[in-house]
């Protein structure tokens, strides 16, 4: 007997019991998932980041400069002390500052320039014309420094229609993804666990 399949099936049914109403079985499964997920991420973070990037460089390779990020990381734990918690802002400001500095050129390159480049299409097909009109009209819609009146108002209104198509198609795509997951779980329960289907 495969105990793993039985455990997975019982936990799956416990989560689906929420469709009836909130109950202790669902709450238990929900809390197990939270605990296991946190344990998973901590174990993976320690083994893939802290051990190879901090402990091995310091203790095996003798790179003592890595003690500095180690100490800064430990300073984060001062959050738990009422008196010393302001010092935990120092490592936080390093993460925020570096993140902000890195994101400006990254966003400029990966989003703005790349997206604009992809929109500069030859006007030789209906699809290309629609793409150009849609990008421009959606950008006009998000331009709030001018009131949406006159030509800007018309552009913004066209933008709303394209946004509606985007929201509708994204919704449809998400629904289908969720339903395929549901089919997968039902196949698991009826096939792998109970053996009713192949």
């Amino acid at each position, binding site marked *: 007997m495969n105990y793993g399949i039985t455990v997975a099936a019982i936990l799956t049914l416990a989560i689906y019991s929420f469709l009836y109403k909130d109950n202790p079985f669902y709450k238990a499964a929900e809390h197990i998932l939270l605990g296991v*997920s946190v344990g998973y991420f901590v*174990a993976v973070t320690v083994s893939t980041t802290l051990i190879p990037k901090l402990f091995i460089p310091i203790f095996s390779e003798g790179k003592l400069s890595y003690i500095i990020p180690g100490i800064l990381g430990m300073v984060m734990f001062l959050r738990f002390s009422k008196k010393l918690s*302001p010092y935990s*802002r120092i490592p936080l*400001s390093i993460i925020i500052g570096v993140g902000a500095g890195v994101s400006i050129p990254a966003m400029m390159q990966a989003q703005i320039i790349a997206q604009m480049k992809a929109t500069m299409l030859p006007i030789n097909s209906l699809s290309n014309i629609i793409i150009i009109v849609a990008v421009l009209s959606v950008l006009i819609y998000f331009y709030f420094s001018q009131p949406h009146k006159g030509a800007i108002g018309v552009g913004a209104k066209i933008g709303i*229609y394209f946004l509606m198509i985007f*929201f509708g198609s994204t919704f449809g795509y998400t629904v289908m993804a*969720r339903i395929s997951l549901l089919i997968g*779980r039902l196949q698991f329960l009826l096939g792998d666990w109970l053996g009713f289907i192949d």
Partner: protein
Amino acid sequence: MHRKLPLLICFALGTFMLVQFFVPHKASTALYEAILDWVQIIYAFSLLVGAMMLIKHHAVIASGRDAKERPFSILILMGITVMLVAGLFFGRGEGTVFHWLFQNVQAPMQATMFSLLSFFVASAAYRGFRARNSQAIFLLVAAIIVMLGRIPVGEIISSYIPKAADWILNVPSMAARRGIYIGIALGTIATSLRVILGIERTYLGGK
């Protein structure tokens, strides 16, 4: 001092990381990569702080008098402990306890949680998908065509439905998404500049 020093560090590092992009010198690139390495380490510690806060919160409940909530907090603490001990001391490869727990507890439960949302999405669609005006009709038609285009029934009804679904996803929907992405990028750049210049300082907490 408690607020000025973090703001100064944020400004100095943010400016350096921004300017470095335009200075492809060997020394500056080496420093840039070293800082990125260091930030990864500090970031890993911040995840540990988050986990510690969760453990602290549930340890208080587990040792408290609320008999209704106590068993659930104990379950969370057990889940964290078992997964941590298994992952850190007994390996993470195939055939290990960690791998077994991931395959038979975490992965199926995550998939089930996401699949559960299909019921709520369907109920939300029933309540929200009313063709009240022309904009709502566009949303409704796009959603129906994309949903039908992804299943065999769509192909049976008409061979044009899957093609129409692909066209909607690749042309108007993709173009609107492109506009949104450009907007997000401009917003991110504006917020990053505010953070570097110390105008946006909510991450420091307090008033």
